[in-house]
């Protein structure tokens, strides 16, 4: 399959597909970070995570429309405001969900899976009723349009670079929060040993709620970023949820580094293969490889060694 291309062409193909893979990687990382934090700490499988992401996307869509109608002069910076509001909205909804039913189900992880699936169905129908079944897209501000030509055959789209920068910023922020702040220290204590953390005076219930809200908030930002590279429909979240779960499990739950590494591997593999095979076969091969590796190494790439 390589023989049809010259080596220069192949290089460009790999570069371009690699870049497309990096954009996919960014979305995966943003989704998976939130999921990994929640799963790692509480053992909760949040099947509605994709819908939290879509909430962010719809919020961004609304804000961009508001700016276009009322504040056209400030349209260039709407995205930053939309991102913050998406974060707050998704985080608030996350806190509400945690308070209203997730907290009763911590002892039954398989049941949280079903309950959050129910939540995702409800949210999907809400989106469908409010925004309609058709996909919506946002208008990008001028400075995000276009691309930077690197060589004759390689061009880098600006919006993709922006999303990557955003992902990097958020990943660094999460890292600082988890490993440098007092709150992060408490979270890690709860992850490692919940009863002991409670015994030394950490309010684990409160930590749980904030963590859940934070995870959902990051999903909201992911949705915000998602609008820049694709359009949003009510069921778009479901398309990503299985991939994201695999990313989290493949990386090793509760390991942020592992999550990022596995997101990188999966997205790169998928987007490079996509060029040579059909899209569906690329996905099948990627997922299959991940599943087989998980069967051989069930604890994931980077397992945290914890004494329970």
């Amino acid at each position: 399959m390589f023989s049809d291309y010259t080596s220069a062409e192949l290089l460009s193909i790999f570069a371009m597909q690699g870049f497309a893979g990096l954009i996919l990687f960014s979305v995966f990382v943003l989704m998976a970070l939130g999921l990994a934090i929640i799963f790692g700490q509480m053992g909760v499988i949040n099947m509605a995570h994709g819908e939290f992401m879509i909430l962010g996307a719809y919020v961004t869509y609304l804000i961009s429309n508001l700016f276009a109608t009322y504040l056209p002069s400030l349209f260039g910076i709407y995205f930053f405001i939309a991102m913050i509001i998406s974060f707050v909205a998704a985080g608030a909804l996350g806190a509400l969900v945690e308070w209203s039913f997730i907290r009763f189900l911590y002892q039954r992880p398989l049941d949280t899976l079903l309950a959050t699936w129910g939540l995702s169905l409800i949210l999907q129908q809400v989106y469908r009723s409010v925004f309609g079944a058709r996909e919506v897209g946002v208008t990008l501000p001028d400075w995000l349009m276009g691309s930077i030509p690197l060589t004759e055959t390689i061009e880098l789209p600006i919006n993709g670079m922006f999303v990557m920068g955003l992902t990097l910023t958020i990943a660094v922020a999460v890292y600082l929060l988890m490993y440098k702040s007092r709150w992060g220290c408490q979270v890690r204590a709860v992850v490692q040993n919940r009863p002991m953390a409670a015994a030394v005076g950490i309010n684990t219930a409160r930590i749980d709620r904030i963590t859940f809200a934070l995870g959902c908030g990051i999903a909201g930002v992911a949705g915000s970023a998602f609008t820049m590279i694709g359009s949003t429909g009510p069921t778009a979240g479901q398309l990503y949820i299985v991939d994201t779960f695999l990313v989290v499990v493949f990386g090793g739950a509760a390991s942020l580094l592992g999550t990022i590494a596995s997101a990188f591997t999966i997205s790169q593999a998928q987007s490079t293969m996509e060029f040579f095979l059909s899209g569906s076969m690329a996905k099948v091969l990627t997922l299959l490889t991940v599943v087989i590796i998980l069967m051989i190494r069930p604890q994931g790439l980077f397992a945290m060694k914890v004494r329970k």
Partner: protein
Amino acid sequence: MSLNTRSLKTSMHSIKTVFPKGDLFYLAVLALFLGVLLPMTLDIFRLNMVGKYLTYAFVAVGLVLCWGYGGILSLGQGVFFGLGGYCMAMFLKLESSDPESTKIQSTPGIPDFMDWNQITELPWFWEPFYSLPFTIIAIIAVPTIFAYIIAVAMFKRRVGGVYFAIITQAIASILTILIIGQQGYTGGVNGITDLRTLLGWDIRTDSAKYVLYYVNFVCLMACLLIAQFVRKSKLGRLLVAMRGREDRVRFSGYDVSSFKIFVFCLGAAFSAIGGAMFTLQVGFMSPSFVGIVPSIEMVIFCAVGGRLSIFGAVYGALLVNWAKTTFSESFPELWLFAMGALFIGVVMAFPSGLAGIYKSHVEPFILRSWQKLKQAKPQPPEPPTSVPEKAPPPKTTPQNAAQPHPIVLTGSISPVGK
């Protein structure tokens, strides 16, 4: 002579062990409901729909064993349902695409969707499906072997809980993408449609639908009997024990993973029978019964019916599907809300489903009214703890009757090895 009575005694005893107290009664009620009441009251269109719902009951019964008893939540039962259904559909499709009726195609004698996808030769894995015996074996064997591979890979490495759930879900996703992507070999997103005859017997007529309904009914009853046997056997108790404390069972010297593998394969085989019956009754098979969404819906059938009750699972499958049809006919918008609320509500408020509600509310009520009825009658009084729905007790020696039949539903283990 003495040997004969002893074997009779043991068989009586084993019947009582497999069907303690009311279970035989519930089985009879279910059989009467499905086998007599519904066919008498519903027209053939509705009955065919009930038959379709009942094919999901196979999956739900399998899930009761896997999830309710074994604590293995599989979100990929649609895979086995689909594999069984596709095996059946491949046979029927080959029969309906004989060279005579497909002579307008550029390659006569192959299924129409292959012709549309410029495939000129029947793929090798379709060839054996010309034979009905092979097909019937394949319906059970293919999904079971597939389940066995997954289960061995996972359970031998002690993967369980949510990891297992996610991986089965991923497998469901992979299979769906594969089926849709390989349109020429599988019929793609439309699935395998336009199935007409089974060995020359038209499956679309009303009489055929009645026959198929009863075939389905008999298969379901057989699966229920197997499930009941597993539930009441030592295996069932071990499953419950494993669900409670897996390490303790392992430390007691049991090979935990083989029991899990067995029950997962059994669930897969049940699902596959359901899938094949689905294809026969509905007349097509498509990837929309394989993927993530249908697979997780199958779990809710089981959860609504009661994850610990094989009979409850059948009612759950009927009820949820009936509600789905009714709602989506009249209020399509509300259906997803109702379904979502059902997921949350069942998990939050009724973790043991309809069967649990029946056990905690309806059964005591029936018991009480039965007691009153008995007291009113001038009959020799029975001890108040007896359960009236007991099947007519077989004549047993006192020694036999004194043997207890514990029903262990909680995590605790009563002495298992006798």
